[in-house]
């Protein structure tokens, strides 16, 4: 621990930047939001909503993590991390002032330009809300560019809901519908219970005038797409954030290959029209 808290930045491999941890905030029982402070580097915090970085915990390992902060706040890099293994545990246990290595940002972004003038439907499951939050921040900052915003968010239980303050704030905004559901609700939970697809009953979609952005477990995304197809939303207006085992982040190693694509380089955001042939392939 003392080595990583030293004042001087550690020596890092080429293309990696040492950045200090500004804060680690607990979101839920197993999920934390990590804020990095890329001091002194002009534009070091710039990214497009949907992109990810490779975060390196010195001596432990490197992880692909979606950027979950406000893209207009270029002074900070924000990541929401679920602690599920050795490297993610080390990341969420970082202390303010500690150094981590950052590569990126990498990958494609949500189609915010194409969505201008449309309604936008965002469907998120679990920690899938994290890579969508920058897109929501962007649309709220450019509110006149979009018509209605609809967010359907599913989590495992009330204690797994991310960004509760954000959700409550967004729900109060005009022309913004925020519906949250949990798979398992306790007796104190007064919101919806059921999988995220059940929320489609409570939104009115206008096919041809709605752009859908989806992020969550792949099975969830498949069933969400079925709901969109039932409502005649054109495939070309559906975008997904895919998750695979990303290692190099630049399309060399092949770990994240999905059909003809490398998720790290060609994604993680894909138009559904490109993903459709690969989504239901059992072998992939």
């Amino acid at each position, binding site marked *: 621990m003392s080595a990583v808290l030293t004042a001087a930045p550690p020596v890092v491999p080429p293309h990696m930047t040492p950045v200090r941890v500004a804060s680690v905030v607990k979101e839920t029982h197993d999920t934390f939001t990590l804020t990095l402070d890329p001091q002194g580097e002009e534009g070091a915090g710039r990214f497009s909503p949907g992109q990810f970085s490779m975060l390196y915990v010195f001596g432990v390992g490197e992880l692909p993590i979606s950027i979950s902060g406000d893209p207009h706040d270029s002074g900070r890099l924000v990541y929401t991390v679920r602690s599920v293994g050795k490297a993610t545990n080390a990341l969420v246990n970082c202390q303010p002032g500690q150094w981590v290595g950052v590569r990126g940002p990498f990958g494609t972004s949500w189609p915010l330009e194409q969505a201008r003038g449309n309604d936008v439907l965002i469907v998120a499951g*679990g920690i899938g809300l994290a890579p969508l939050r920058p897109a929501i921040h962007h649309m709220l900052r450019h509110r006149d560019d979009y018509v209605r915003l609809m967010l359907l968010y599913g989590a*495992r239980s009330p204690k797994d809901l991310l960004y509760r303050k954000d959700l409550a704030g967004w729900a109060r905004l005009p022309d913004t519908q925020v519906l949250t*559901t949990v798979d398992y*609700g306790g007796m104190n939970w*007064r919101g919806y219970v*059921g*999988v995220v697809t059940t929320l489609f009953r409570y939104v009115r979609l206008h096919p041809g005038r709605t752009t859908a952005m989806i992020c969550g477990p792949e099975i969830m995304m498949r069933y969400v797409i079925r709901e969109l197809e039932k409502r005649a939303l054109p495939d070309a207006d559906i975008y997904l954030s895919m998750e695979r085992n990303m290692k190099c982040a630049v399309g060399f190693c092949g770990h994240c290959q999905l059909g003809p694509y490398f998720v790290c380089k060609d994604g993680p955001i894909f138009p559904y029209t490109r993903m459709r042939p690969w989504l239901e392939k059992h072998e992939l």
Partner: protein
Amino acid sequence: MESKTLTDVLREHPFLEGLKPNHVQRMAEVALEVQFARDQIIFREGDETSLFYLLVSGKVALEVSAPGRIVRIQTLGEGDEMGWSSLLGHAGKTFQARSLEPVRAIGFDATRLRQVWEQDPAFGYQFMVRLLKVVAQRLQAARLQLLDLYAPRGVKLV
């Protein structure tokens, strides 16, 4: 239900959308408006009530009693239907229903509805096709719920 007639409310309900006007009228003839306060038990598991409901506003939780606790399985809201097992002539309700907020609904006596359908099987068929879609959607949702999609990788439901 404000100034709308019961027939208007039924015509606008998503479950009955597109139903022939004479069929909507037949529904209205056996319907009654009901309201439930927040936290009211609408029916209990095993109750032999024969009422089927179309929800107009508010939110209802379907619950199952387990030893020492009550498990909330699903919520229903505006535009949903509730108590469909009554339509099949089952003896008792399979879930407990509790209003989570003030609820307005249209209730139908299932026995009288079945009599109407026996007189007009084409209407009964139309209604049952709609009902089957609802049942299929709920079955699919329950299956997805069983998958525990958001569990951390490596955590298995065994």
